[in-house]
């Protein structure tokens, strides 16, 4: 029983990958706090990705995406205990 809400992760991941390259700052040469502005974008973006990945893991969408449905759907990370974990 795939939760429809899980599908939102597909565009989220697509956006995370697409804008990991700071396209909006193409050609911008402003230096902010000692580094070019686009380097700050990069730093912020990867931190954002890390946070988003964590949310993804916590949402339980990880297991459901693999077809490992757990009773009750959003069982969080415990869902893995059902099928994914070996021991």
């Amino acid at each position, binding site marked *: 029983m795939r939760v429809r809400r899980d599908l939102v992760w597909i565009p989220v*991941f697509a956006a*995370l*990958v697409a804008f*990991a*390259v*700071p396209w909006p*700052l*193409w*050609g*911008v*040469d*402003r*230096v902010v*706090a*000692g*580094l*070019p502005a*686009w*380097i700050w974008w*990069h*730093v912020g*973006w*990867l*931190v954002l*990705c*890390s946070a988003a*990945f*964590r949310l993804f*893991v916590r949402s339980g969408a*990880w*297991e459901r*995406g*693999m*077809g*490992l*449905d757990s009773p009750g759907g959003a069982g969080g*990370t415990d869902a*893995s205990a059902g*099928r*994914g*974990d*070996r*021991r």
Partner: protein
Amino acid sequence: MTAPIGLGLGVVVGYLLVALTIGLVAYRLTETTAEDYYLANRSIGTVVLLFTTFATLLSAFTFFGGPNLAYAAGPEWLIVMGTLDGVLFAVLWYVVGYKQWLIGDRHGYVTLGEMLGDRFGSPGLRALVAGVSLLWLFPYVMLQQMGAGEALVGLTGGAVPYWGGAALITAFMIAYVTLAGLRGVAWTDTIQGLFMLSVVWVAAAWVVSAVGGVGAATGSMVAARPEFASFGGGVYTPGFIVSTAITIAFGVTMFPQINQRFFVAESGMVFKRSFALWPVLVLLLFVPAFLLGAWAVGMPVDVPEGANVLPVVLNAYTPTWFAALVIAGAMAAMMSSSDSMLLSGSSYFTRDLYRPFVAPDASERREAWVARTGVVAFATLAFLASLLRPGTLIQVGDTAFSGFALLSLPTLCALYWDRTTRDGMAVGIAVPQAIYLLVVLSSVLPVVPTLPRTISVAGSGGWDVALGLMVLSAVLTVGVSLLTAPTAESDASRFAVAGD
């Protein structure tokens, strides 16, 4: 000058000895089964999985190639590597890696070829995957040897010749892999990963304080090369950025030593934690390493033609013992990649080629002997080829990655689409590989006219031909699968993860 050179070499050799000791301890704990030797009995936890993947992924390509490219063309390499390693690879880690772990865990697979061969009931497909993987592993092992050779030349000011450094790392790799299995590799990787991270930050802090701060370093960089401040331009066309990021990230997932990491996790939780921590880890290493390379253009240092920029900067701004320590860190990065590569290569060779086709009833002892002989032969041949220096680190690395990337879409099809057939897989893998090999060979063999490696599209720069071949591999896999019927031996339920 002799004393500092001796000191530098001493640090590097001392470091190698420490790593070897860890390998020996792991060796004593390793059982004689293939699953333990190659996969540490699927018992790897979060920290070790994270760092073993990290240290395995980061090699001479990252450590010297990256700063060199940032020095020559600007710091945008940070974005290319950050995007592909930090974000795209992490997503693939979930999409490919986790599913592969679930399947491997159920059926006890050790290699990618074994997994696909079993799913389609085809030893031929298994051999094809192993053969293609070994083919592209070769230039990548060579890359590590080239990196090590250059590293020691830089560290000792030429007192140790290029071949000496390459030979040292070859000997070390052979000793290490024939002794310790994956457990030893994973343990040293963890130490090497932590070590690399620490030294690169200390190095950056040292150099930055010597030149008067981050602002001053960037200021001199921009004064020397104004275009380095702005994003894009020069070699960094959209075509280059997108092609490189995609081919490398997809290539990495099919890289034998990375792909096998997908089988080793102790639990699903290990995957989840590693996945979320990954982008930050990537950021922590790449930012200081690549910025040091880019900042060097504004420093009064003289980087000789063909030399690596990082050792030159360190020699100028830090004491010899510290520069040696960083080079040892870089050597560590190379070793932790190449020992894993040789280990994976040997498992592909023995399990997917030797046992099924040469000696189905070989004893475990004989198989172990063949695996070790294979490692020695492979490493020695790669060493000899590395002496020819057939391109820069970035070129050699990129060639290998694209070759692996061509395996990724057929594998994804097999993982997620039950209707995939054996013939679809075979054609989807073999045809793009053959074309790509022709393109690569045409640039080195004088008999055939050189085929273009990149295709330019108006205004967006050159796009890697491998990107088009990736699309072709997907089209062929899907198309041929639709036209052919699944063979009687294939069994899609082998890749099912839910239910029993």
